[in-house]
């Protein structure tokens, strides 16, 4: 569309060096095979008049063990590359085998609005 702002595109190197951070304040409750994340649902703008969510309604995400590991490492200080290395080390995985699920999982978290990647001004200008 003409007026839609373009989403900034990151190169592979920039993406791996980026430091993802959590956008929701939620506690992970651990389960034997992973964990469960309860997130407070946000009222959509259009829904304030048409449809109102009950107060304190939550959404639950189930994570497997790798998901919990990645979530624990998302702190705004650890880069994606470091998360991949730690995962590979923790589960004795090949680098590529650790990279693929980590990146896919982070993409999914970003899509759901649970995690964000801070952008530099330069990146925004590039977009």
């Amino acid at each position: 569309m003409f007026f839609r702002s373009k989403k900034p595109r990151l190169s592979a190197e920039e993406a791996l060096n980026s430091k993802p951070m959590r956008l929701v304040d939620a506690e992970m409750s651990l389960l034997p095979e992973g964990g469960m994340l309860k997130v407070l649902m946000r009222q959509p703008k259009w829904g304030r008049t048409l449809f109102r969510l009950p107060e304190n309604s939550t959404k639950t995400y189930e994570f497997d063990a790798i998901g919990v590991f990645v979530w624990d490492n998302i702190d705004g200080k650890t880069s994606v590359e470091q998360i991949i290395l730690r995962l590979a080390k923790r589960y004795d995985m090949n680098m590529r085998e650790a990279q693929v699920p980590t990146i896919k999982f982070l993409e999914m978290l970003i899509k759901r609005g649970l995690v964000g990647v801070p952008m530099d001004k330069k990146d925004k200008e590039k977009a």
Partner: protein
Amino acid sequence: MASKEKTDTVSPLTTGRSQLIAWHGWRLNVPDAWNPVKVDGDRDQGVLLLADMFQAKLGLRWRRMKRGDPVQWANRSLEAEVGKLAAAEAVDYPMPEGSDWRVSKLYIDKEPPGRDIWVGWSQKSGRVLEIVHHAKTRDPVLADQVLPSVSDTQSTDPQAWSIYDFSAITSAEWSLKWFRLNAGDLTLAFANQRRSIRLRQVGPASLALSRMELDDWIGQLDKAYRKIYREAQNLSDVTLQLPTRALKGRSGVFRRKRRLFWAFRFANEVRTLGFHDPVRNRLLMAQGDDEPAMREMIATMGWASREVEK
């Protein structure tokens, strides 16, 4: 004052560890962080592209030479890759003694970033191999690490396979039919005339087994098999003796459906063997109609990691 961030001491570019890649007879030693991102072709002609976390690092391209002079073939391949002027600057690269390389030419780009290229013709298999190293800076890894380790095997010798974390050795009569390389779930399917074997490795086993029991992993049949074979009913305990230890596992037999009694091209029964390797934290599975060969192949799984450890 801003505190200095702690960073992991392990970096993909500085680990110094190496891994073995073995594919369609080729075998070479590459840095641990370089992993295949594109695998294509068969024994006669194919491509293998290795990349680190950021970019493509090494490309392998091979082709069987049907006729003509191997020197001319190698020169032509080099010219096609870097052009005539650059190809004229290529030097003969001495391969280790005892290796059967009749041609071995190396071109190093003088002004990186660029491509360093080695072209060789193997007497063992009659194939031309091109190795292209995408060098960002002056990096001696191609000449110092990769090239001295490049070797080839004859099609009549046992074939070694090593890709990602999967490694196995098959006897010469088994040829690779297809492969599926998903992260943590690697399958290679081999065929020998009408017989077939699929080798599968799932890891880490601690996660895989928390999701599903070993019996359920064994019970998983591919869709193509499910149409032909009934589900396994009696799973039994099996043991596989390795040189240093014994692996415990389960075995299941899938019999052909009665209504397909006329389909003689399919084996009467297909056996699946599944083992948990606690040392490597991997599940090793084999499915096929030749149990002795399956046992032999499973026993060799993980040979590459053992060799690197040595």
